[in-house]
């Protein structure tokens, strides 16, 4: 009993310890707030700039979720296509790897050129960042169906479609959920990168402005808010994951996750 509680609380305890350390070090060494504000100053900045922060975080959240949502839909479709068809895999996969290797920061200015700066740019960048891990993980689950199981089903007259629906998709759900946890945090990264580089609204832009004003506490406030939002979204997907695919951690299926 005691251990379970300790396990649940341990990340919170660590967070609090780190915040206290931050406070003590900044105060103890008398570091200027322009260089590094203390924890209390940063949290106060959250309160002080709550209106702007709230508006910016909603914008960031909005573009993140849109980009992420589109990535889930197309990532799953693309993952299924790659997972079940060798020709598609052979043709598409190398290109995707190459594309994924491009630093996303350099893509943003091109996007601005094409679609202007704004919500759409952040959403597209979020999409680009989190698309790949979703595709890969979905494909892995489908491509690694036990050959014996396929034989059992094919000898019953099952079509490829039956095998995908009855076995492939349920089997790849744990891989998919694992990738969604990674993908949502990557989507945040993408949205904030776009906001910072393209200067469209959102937390990224707010921090850019704060930086030019030497408002370091606000920058730290922004970081805290982004981290909190990303962790919250991660938590939602972690909960969904353990709810829908608990069998995967109990059963013998072992799976790895590919991040991006």
């Amino acid at each position, binding site marked *: 009993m005691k251990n379970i509680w300790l396990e649940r609380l341990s990340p919170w305890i660590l967070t609090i310890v780190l915040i206290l350390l931050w406070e003590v070090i900044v105060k103890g060494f008398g570091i200027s707030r322009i260089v590094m504000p203390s924890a209390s100053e940063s949290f106060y900045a959250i309160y002080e700039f709550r209106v702007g922060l709230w508006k910016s975080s909603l914008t960031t959240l909005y573009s993140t979720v849109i980009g992420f949502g589109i990535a889930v839909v197309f990532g799953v479709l693309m993952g299924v296509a790659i997972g079940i068809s060798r020709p598609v895999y052979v043709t598409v996969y190398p290109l995707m790897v190459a594309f994924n290797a491009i630093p996303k920061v350099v893509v943003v200015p091109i996007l601005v050129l094409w679609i202007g700066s704004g919500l759409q740019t952040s959403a597209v960048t979020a999409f680009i960042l989190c698309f790949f891990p979703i595709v890969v993980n979905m494909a892995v689950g489908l491509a690694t169906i*036990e050959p*014996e*199981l396929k*034989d*059992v*089903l*094919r*000898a*019953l*007259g*099952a079509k490829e479609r*039956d095998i995908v629906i*009855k*076995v492939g998709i*349920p*089997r790849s*759900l744990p891989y998919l959920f694992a990738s969604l946890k990674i993908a949502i945090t990557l989507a945040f990264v993408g949205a904030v990168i776009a906001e910072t580089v393209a200067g469209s609204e959102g937390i990224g832009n707010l921090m850019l402005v704060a930086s030019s004003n030497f408002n370091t506490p606000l920058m730290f406030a922004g970081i805290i808010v982004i981290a909190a939002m990303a962790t919250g979204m991660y938590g939602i997907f972690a909960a969904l994951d353990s709810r829908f*695919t608990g*069998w*995967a951690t*109990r*059963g*013998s*299926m072992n799976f790895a996750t590919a991040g991006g």
Partner: protein
Amino acid sequence: MAFIEIEDVDLVYRNSFGHEVSDGTLALSGTNLTMEKGEFIALVGPSGCGKSTLLKVVSGLIRANKGKVTVAGETVTDPLKIVGMAFQNASLLPWRSTRENVLLPLEIVEPHRQRFRAEKAHYEELADKLLETVGLEGFGDRAPWQLSGGMQQRAQLCRALVHEPDLLLLDEPFGALDAFTREELWDVLQALYTDRKCTVMLVTHDLREAVYLADTVYVMSARPGRVILDKKIDMPRPRKLEDLYSRDIADLIQELRHHINVARTDE
């Protein structure tokens, strides 16, 4: 005409895309075998000689490069639609309960497929009855990973039989089990066989298993495999484990072992 006729079959596994067939592995070469309806045969032979391959050829999962395979009077070109199969690895679906695993074939095979939703309760009852006959009464709701290896094999047998196939193909289904469980499952299989009267091809490395269960035991040569010997087993059914210790049967097993050893070293 016999139920299964395999005539002079060659099978080559191509090693990679686009290569000539001659680059591949010749797994079967000039294989002949005939089986009557309702017969139980066992295939034994050195490892890698093509036993699993032969099962796949019969089921139509892979196509022979040469020769002819007919099942129930029809030439096999595509996967047969109604074969029951079981392997060494139970490969049950971990997200389904044991009962739902057993029901899987009925969601695919016609005519059950169309009725499945409407008559789910009826089918579930069927599955439970089947589970009961293999000694898994009350385990229908369990997840497969909550079952022991032997229990998973029992469930796999149910999955292979639930749609009442005419042909049952078993590839070392008891290979990973301990001796006691294995002998227990021989009797489970024997009972199912006498009950269903289906045609069974069993691949095994265990000669006692082959002799205990089959009407005819076929010995295959080393790769490329072909049938080099067939032995009728004249033991009345139902057979009992004691029967295996009779002089005649012990000699027969010894003889089979000898032939496989010769086939192995003959490569």
